[in-house]
């Protein structure tokens, strides 16, 4: 499955769910996100995003995490079938 289904967190719509498939960053970023349980294979739901390239808030395992825009841009998600 490729194409329209794989997008960064920043381009997801509020309320959409998907699965993290890749984190495009160095070891540091991968580690910091993994510490918050954001890593390939995890199901996430987007809760909100702030205007003007503000942080994106997602829910992972019933916990909310706010991620700065630049970082969120590097978290690639495959959208659920229903959300496409």
């Amino acid at each position, binding site marked *: 499955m490729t194409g329209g289904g794989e997008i960064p967190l920043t381009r997801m719509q*509020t309320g959409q769910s998907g699965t993290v498939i890749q984190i495009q960053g160095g070891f*540091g970023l991968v*580690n*910091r*996100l*993994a*510490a*918050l*349980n954001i*890593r390939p294979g995890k199901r996430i739901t987007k*809760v*909100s*995003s*702030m*205007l*003007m*390239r*503000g*942080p994106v*808030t997602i829910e992972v*395992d*019933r*916990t*909310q*995490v*706010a*991620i*700065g*825009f*630049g*970082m969120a841009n590097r978290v690639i998600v495959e959208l659920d079938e229903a959300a496409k």
Partner: protein
Amino acid sequence: MRILLMGNPNVGKSVVFSRLTGVNVIASNYPGTTVGYTRGFMKLGEEKVEVIDVPGTYTLEPTSEAEEVARRMLDAGNIVINVVDATNLERNLYLTLQLLERNIPVIVALNIWDDTRHRGINIELDKLRELLGVPVIPTVAITGQGIKELAGSIPNTNAASPEAPVRSRDERWAAIGNIVEKVQRVTHRHHTWSERLADASVKPLRGGIIALIVIAGAFFVVRFIGESLIGYVLEPLFENLWALVILRLSSLLGGESFIHQILIGKITGDEVNFVESFGLLTSGLYVPFAMVLPYIIAFYLMLGLLEDSGYLPRLAVLMDTIMHRLGLHGYAIIPILLGLGCNVPAILATRILESNRERFIAATLISVAVPCAALQAMIFGLVGERGGQYVAVVYGTLFVVWIILGIILRYAARGFTPELLIEIPPYRLPQWRAVVQKLWMRVYGFLAEALPVILGAILVINILDILGIFGAIANFTAPVVTGLLGLPKEAVTALVIGFLRKDVAVGMLAPLALTAEQLVVGSVVLAMSFPCIATFIVLLRELGVVGMVKATGIMVSAALIAGGLLNVVL
């Protein structure tokens, strides 16, 4: 023996610590409340053992100053009590596995256990114990449930050291996935009202409206409580009762004696002016108790409620875009809010920020443009008397300075600002016992630390006054104070005393018969210029000599520029 309390941020380590040791520490509902470590002692049978409340950490690979502290502490402990958020087992177990690999005896306290049921989470304890190979004790630290069992399991754990292979990150996650699948069942349930509110408060429009309501509400509640305490309780007490004692004492001592000036200061006729007399028993008590304390109580009550509700991280998300313009990210709003109470804990709290650059910017902005509660109380008391618009000018100026200085520092300070990455805790209803206890700790802290300095400052003022030293300083600095700031040269005494206590310093402006405009300039310069001695020491410790000298240089220049401009404009 030394026991370490370790766990992810915001899982309740500090509450467990208070329960085990009886030592009260500040606990709140946001990640990063504890930035240093606190030690206490508990009795274990006949033995007295040391317990350390370690700052929260997600992993043993440190990503911030607070996590670095946590990692270093690990080498010094004999047993780890790993406090785990039962509602977020998977993520919390990552640190647990890392701890197990260190071959240090571990006890798992499965905290926030009461919330698992509401959230539809079912954890099989026996299976979890078996899979981890260590004691697992469900606890609800806030109510004390399970604490006795937790303490009881410590002696048995001492000997048994579990053995775990050292794994890579992916292997750990795989192992955790395995454990969670075996022990945890999650059933679906509907959103609660607090979750709906939680979602709304991080959305741009609704969140912004909620933030405005919360901040405006907090401000009015603080003013209402502060003014009511002053108007109905403390002022009547001083004016109607204490004034009689003072007048009696005054006539006993005779108006001109040295002792009279030190204890009572300058009073005329049969009226005591508690603000202007400047004796130890008059202004020395009136300023801390009747002017500052009411606002300290009101502010910290409100702050405690906000902290425990879990609102502050949401405010951080909302403020993130704006804070990036100042070279900081949204989480810096927490130290800045703490600074409205006292700059000292605020500068300590900058440890939750990741880089040295952010910490320098935040600490400098706090000491320049964030007035502490004591200073604000005096500004409200003295400047407010002349009209609310003057108070607004003081606050407006500080706000503009905050923004401009932030923008300058963003470009001038070296390094880069990392992005926001925070966990947002669920909303919780603040527990009144916890709120009152925290309020008491902070109020007691103010009385224990500020009162001696206030009295000392007033003593110093009187002695310098009697010796005529202020006159010499006043003449020496007259060009700056009079020429640039448009204040009478005597006002310099207040600026000098500002180094000891800013509240007393604002009080010293009272007897000078200043115009409202001069009072505004004086208050702004006092707020911005040199830090008070307590802030000075903490700046030195947190930023080092070079950082502190830079920050102080920025403060003095910013104060003179802002004061000079205000003098021209007003």
